């Protein structure tokens, strides 16, 4: 059995079918990058893996057990929107995971335990380049800095499954490259299983071991909600040939034109 099994999963909101007939298996240590047109259900899929949304039909299992229907420490997340705690400084935001873990009642650490947790947090903060801002509150940070904080906060927990929803969208190219190295490094070191949504096809090819494309393979012009998106491409990245990637690019652009939405930022050749 594979680590994660997705069996005939559907997701519907009222009449609208968002996802349909999703079938796939994921091995431990896979780094799956997900691309697809805006609004096709990528975030919804991630929420199902997280356990905050249940599938309308079908079942997802992790390590041969049905997925826990609530978020827990096994699955870490970095949301599309900022999810750091506004009442804590950068350092406090990152130390928090250790405090939750080691102090079940007070949720606060003291003395040497605290010192150790702070040191660990400082290393992580250093890795995301926020050392000069450790005592700042999130509202004093730029959008990209907040996102890096969210990444540090999630990574310090070293969750077995890491869910990333367009985590690098707001970052400039230099920091983006640093973050890529950081994520790859942690992924290798801790054997994480990562699902990452991105709008940047180049990033998807570069980071992942597998690339999934979410797309509708059937469209009813009279009823746009009648059919949901499926995984239309699932390919090991690395062995990708130019033809396939051109095809993906084309299908994504097609989709964008259909939805009359601005072209994707990352589909430059």
């Amino acid at each position, binding site marked *: 059995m594979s680590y994660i099994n997705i069996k005939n999963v559907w997701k519907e909101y009222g009449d609208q079918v968002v996802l349909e007939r999703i079938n796939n298996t994921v091995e431990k240590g896979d780094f799956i990058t997900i691309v697809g047109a805006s609004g096709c259900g990528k975030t919804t899929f991630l929420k199902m893996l997280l356990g905050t949304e249940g599938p309308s039909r079908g079942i997802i299992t992790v390590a041969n057990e049905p997925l826990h229907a*609530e978020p*827990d*420490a096994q699955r870490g997340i970095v*949301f599309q929107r900022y999810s750091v705690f506004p009442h804590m400084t950068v350092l406090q935001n990152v130390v*928090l995971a250790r405090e*939750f873990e080691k102090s079940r009642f007070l*949720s606060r650490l003291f003395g040497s335990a605290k010192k150790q947790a702070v040191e660990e947090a400082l290393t992580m903060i250093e890795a995301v380049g926020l050392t000069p801002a450790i005592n700042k509150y999130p509202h004093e940070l730029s959008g990209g800095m907040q996102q890096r904080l969210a990444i540090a906060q*999630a990574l310090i927990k070293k969750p077995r499954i890491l869910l990333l929803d367009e985590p690098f969208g707001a970052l400039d190219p230099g920091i983006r490259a640093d973050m890529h190295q950081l994520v790859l490094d942690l992924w290798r070191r801790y054997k994480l299983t990562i699902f990452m949504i991105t709008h940047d096809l180049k990033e998807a090819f570069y980071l992942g071991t597998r690339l999934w494309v979410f797309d509708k393979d059937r469209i009813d012009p009279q009823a746009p909600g009648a059919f949901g998106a499926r995984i239309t491409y699932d390919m090991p990245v690395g062995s990708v040939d130019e033809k396939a990637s051109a095809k993906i690019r084309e299908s994504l652009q097609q989709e964008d034109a259909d939805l009359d939405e601005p072209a994707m930022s990352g589909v430059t050749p």
Partner: protein
Amino acid sequence: MKKLINQQPTKPFRWLLGIIPFFILLILYIGASNARLAENPNDKLLPALGSFVEAMDRLAFEPSKRSGEYVFWQDTVSSLERLGIGVGVSALIALIFGVVNGTIPYVRANLSPLITAISLVPPMAILPVLFIVFGLGELSKIVLIAIGITPFLIRDMQQRVLEIPSEQLIKAQTLGANTWQIIVRVVLPQVMPRLIASVRLSLGAAWLFLIAAEAIASTDGLGYRIFLVRRYLSMDVILPYVLWITLLAFAVDFALRKLSLWLYPWFHDQTPEGA
């Protein structure tokens, strides 16, 4: 020349502009008072400023002939004590119930309708019930304040908890937090400044209930004194007392604001209007 909406007065000028209306009011009062006193030197409605000083001097700095107490200070301490205990207890109850209601759906389903119903009962209408149940002592006055403002505070706290973005609660869970840890580290610290803000809003109502309760059944307190001397048309006591109550209300509000700014800078920086 800039548009009117873009013109800012300089700081000293802003002060001056702010003080002028008070000054005009004072002048108007003195004018009206002089006019009435010229007609009838025994007029009690608009006493001269000197009479205020005299009356306050008597109440604040001479021991009362009957009890030997300094009436003005005694009244102030009694009233502030009732207000402080009443508001403090209300805030504590509101914090507990508001947070638990807001975070735990089962408790909310259980208690929310009851709290809504209680908040709709006009507190003054059950004042007689309070006097019957709790007697005419301190307790019934404190309970009146609590009944008057607690339901509002609880509902406000519950609302504030529900406004915390779900991403934060999910994030905390993925960091391994249980319900209790989410409450103490994520929810409580974020609603504390909001509690102070709603307490400040409810202070006006708290003063109202305090003065009403003191007026009806009490032996001291600012409200009691005002209603007592009303019988003798003692405007020379009533007006300074009203001024004093206003000042106290302002001071309490100001202190709470400063406290909140000092304890929760992150809150005030991101919500300038919420200050």
